[in-house]
């Protein structure tokens, strides 16, 4: 570990650290534009110049200079100050003075660093500014390329992290321009992250254009519910509206990325909302009062109070599910199910349906078998992790229909029976691997592949010292929470249908099949007028994830807490309060009167939900040696990445993405 001095202070830095990192360790701020911790080093903005001895008597780019023993780094000399001023002056020659109309204003690296490190004036005032034609990059990214300072972060992101080479830097020198090939839309699932990466206002958010200034926004820590990754986000709200969602840094979960859906479905929070109580009267939904609705439910249950079932949707928090379960328990029913599409895999041991390698851990795997999962669409951020693993030398095999991976992968066909007798290439690779992993997706679970896949755990020795390579990848943010709360019945939705309950409570369950429940009173407690609401007899308007606090458990069993960002619209209430009121109407006692009491009761029952972080599910169950994998995986559960949940389906931005990026409709706007 080399010892260096930074501004006279001696520190020890890790082997291979750069001078910039050494300075940061010493607590010195180094201005930069092109350098980014998660991208390769480009060294082309020159903003990070420092003085280093021994070395040539000139400023050096600290981001690209490795430290060596005895180096003397200075960040506070007149030479450094002058160098930074000079670089800033050059950068500003061509940068337009349009900060007042620029969406980056207030959160712009160039603006901040110009104030902190610039010289306050330019000697190039008579120089003409460079003109660059606008580039089209799709419905999410708005470009104003005259603002570009050629840091190439966006190019490096799409090449290295996303694995989709679509952004490039054409021409050279002052004429360099950032563009996509023939200005096609950037069309991968992480494309909008370049907006966060862009240090200036060249790439900004198109849906958020001219909506708000950063200092007007209230930031609330939340969890993304668009998939089961549980990306850490912060919801930025103005008044009662969520204006945007941005990722928070969490190296264990989402690093600092966010999928386009998690980022841009928030405009759906204000559209197609259920904000009044509705009841079906003579076949038509009509407005009603809470009292009326509750009375109707109580009336339906008269004489058979336990004939009630609850089905949870994909984006429900643990508290809501617990409240529903408590209500049903008090009524004498245990008909609760969260696997609304009818899956029936065995959940007696949660470790068997958990992503045991952890999201950060899967990066270190060296042989990965994906069974029945379109990872890019089911968990875009996991796909970025898999790409990292492949870059680190991992080999990937996939069972299931082909999809466009962002890394080399071998497809082994659609037939699940390959799990019984694995092909030689896979077997050899797994045998040689030190950290082998299997990822089981929703399409495989639906075909009953969980038990035969567990046999692979023994066969490939997936569980070793400090390594567990058996993973199930869920798609629903509520899934792991529901399993921890035991919100399931053994045969899934079929059991619920067989019981023919008089009342079915649907907790925003929009993907369930309502046909078997034709004779039941269907009560929809949800936030969007989607499939579930269309089928409902009674609609009780509830809160979306942005409008209530709640606990979510992601696919690796990480318990995370989301806070309430805004109030629900109209008469909509937080879900637990509706269930609590319903308990009164049904004259049962659920044992809590406040959210704190509810949460305390839930934690008392499932202590793991009270601790943020990875829950411990114990060891994998013994595999059933008779289990045989069979069947063909014909398709993956997600048909359209941008429209997987009611919020996304209500979002105009997601609709446009789906139409333009997936269905190839030409909805390109005229150049602004």
């Amino acid at each position, binding site marked *: 570990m080399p010892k260096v001095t930074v501004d006279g202070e001696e520190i020890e830095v890790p082997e291979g650290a750069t001078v910039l990192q050494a300075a940061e360790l010493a607590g010195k701020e180094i201005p930069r534009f092109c350098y980014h911790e998660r991208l390769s080093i480009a060294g082309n903005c020159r903003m990070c110049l420092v003085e280093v001895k021994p070395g040539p008597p000139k400023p050096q780019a600290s981001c690209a200079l490795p430290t060596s023993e005895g180096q003397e780094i200075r960040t506070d000399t007149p030479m450094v100050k002058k160098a930074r001023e000079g670089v800033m002056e050059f950068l500003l020659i061509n940068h337009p003075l349009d900060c007042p109309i620029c969406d980056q204003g207030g959160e712009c690296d160039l603006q901040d660093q110009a104030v902190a490190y610039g010289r306050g004036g330019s000697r190039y005032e008579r120089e003409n500014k460079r003109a660059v034609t606008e580039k089209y990059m799709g419905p999410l990214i708005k470009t104003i390329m005259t603002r570009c300072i050629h840091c190439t972060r966006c190019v490096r992101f799409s090449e290295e992290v996303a694995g989709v*080479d*679509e*952004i*490039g*830097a*054409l*021409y*050279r020198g002052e*004429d360099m321009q950032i563009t*996509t*090939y*023939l200005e096609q839309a950037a069309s991968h699932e992480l494309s909008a992250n370049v907006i966060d990466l862009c240090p200036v206002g060249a790439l900004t958010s198109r849906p958020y254009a001219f909506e708000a200034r950063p200092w007007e926004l209230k930031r609330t820590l939340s969890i993304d519910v668009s998939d089961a990754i549980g990306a850490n986000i912060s919801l930025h709200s103005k008044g009662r509206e969520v204006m945007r969602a941005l990722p928070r840094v969490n190296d264990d979960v989402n690093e600092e990325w966010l999928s386009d859906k998690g980022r841009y479905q928030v405009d759906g929070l204000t559209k197609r909302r259920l904000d009044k109580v509705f009841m079906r009267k003579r076949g038509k939904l009509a407005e009603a009062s809470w009292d009326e609705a509750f009375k109707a439910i109580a009336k339906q249950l008269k004489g058979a109070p336990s004939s009630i079932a609850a089905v949870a949707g994909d984006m429900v928090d643990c508290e809501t599910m617990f409240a529903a379960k408590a209500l049903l328990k008090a009524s004498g029913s245990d008909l609760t199910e969260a696997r609304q599409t009818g899956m029936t895999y065995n959940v007696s041991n949660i470790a068997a349906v958990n992503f045991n390698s952890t999201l950060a851990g899967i990066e270190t795997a060296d042989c990965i078998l994906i069974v029945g999962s379109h990872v890019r669409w089911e968990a875009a951020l996991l796909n970025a992790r898999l790409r990292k693993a492949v870059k680190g030398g991992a080999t990937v095999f996939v069972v299931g229909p082909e999809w466009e991976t962002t890394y080399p992968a071998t497809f082994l066909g659609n037939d699940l029976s390959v799990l019984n007798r694995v092909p030689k290439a896979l077997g050899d690779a797994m045998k040689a691997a030190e950290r082998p992993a299997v990822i089981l997706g929703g399409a495989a679970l639906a075909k009953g592949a969980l038990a035969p896949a567990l046999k692979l755990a023994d066969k490939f020795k997936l569980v070793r010292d400090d390594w567990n390579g058996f993973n199930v990848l869920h798609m629903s943010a509520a899934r792991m929470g529901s399993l921890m709360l035991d919100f399931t019945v053994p045969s899934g939705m079929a059991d619920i249908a067989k019981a023919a309950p008089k009342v079915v409570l649907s907790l925003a369950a929009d993907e369930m099949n309502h046909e078997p429940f034709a004779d039941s009173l269907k009560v929809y407690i949800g936030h969007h007028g989607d499939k579930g609401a269309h089928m409902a007899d009674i609609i009780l308007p509830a809160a979306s994830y942005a409008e209530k606090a709640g606990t979510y458990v992601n696919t690796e069993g990480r318990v995370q807490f989301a806070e309430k960002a805004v109030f629900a619209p109209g008469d909509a209430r937080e879900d637990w309060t509706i269930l609590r009121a319903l308990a009164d109407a049904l004259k049962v006692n659920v044992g809590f009167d406040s959210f704190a009491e509810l949460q305390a009761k839930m934690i008392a029952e499932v202590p793991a939900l009270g601790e943020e972080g990875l829950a411990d599910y114990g060891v994998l169950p013994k595999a059933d040696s008779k289990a045989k994998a069979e069947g063909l995986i014909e398709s993956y559960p997600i048909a359209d990445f941008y429209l997987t949940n009611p919020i996304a389906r209500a979002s105009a931005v997601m609709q446009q993405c789906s139409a333009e990026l997936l269905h190839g409709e030409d909805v390109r706007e005229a150049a602004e």
Partner: protein
Amino acid sequence: MADRTPAPDTPELRARWGSFEWTKENRKRADYHIAKYPDGRQKSAVMPLLDLAQRQVGEETETQGWLPLPVIEYVAKYIDVPVIRVLEVATFYFMYNMKPVGKYHVQVCGTTPCMLRGSDDIISACKKRGMEFGKVSEDGLWTLTEVECMGNCATAPMVQINDDNYEDLTPERLDTVLDALAKGEQPKTGTQEPGRHTSEPANALSNLTDMVDANHDYRGEW
């Protein structure tokens, strides 16, 4: 600076170049270039391959050649590289023509040594003959481009026409060269100064005189 934007992606362009493929010899040459690089590094051959493609286009169009988008896509596919990466290279280097050029691509060096030795006159001489920057002349023979230093400062001013250099130019000497080319003859390449061989001193040797007969170590004398 020359306009480096690629020729627009029109249906006509696709129709003309969409079916571009290596000729038999060029495929051999392309594979020869690719074989120079270790396995998995085929993309390193992008520059010789683009040059080869440009020359093949040149043979087909009887010009110096240029790179239509479908040809760039073909090269990208041939070495399995995303097309944007190949386009980056093609638009970066001035030796790749992004638009059609004439039979003779007259590239006049306008960098300081050539400029001091009269490249402005060379450019006006070209313009007098009807050439325009970045345009193909009406007879399809000429395209004029101003380029940066070509490394012939000792024999400035110079022009590069297709693969040949013509140095020590005056407007009259340039006219002789261009007239010969227009007639389909091959003028003498290199220096046009009578009596000069290559880039040796034009008059008597003025420095490094001790080196004439044998190697001489100057280091002690500095």
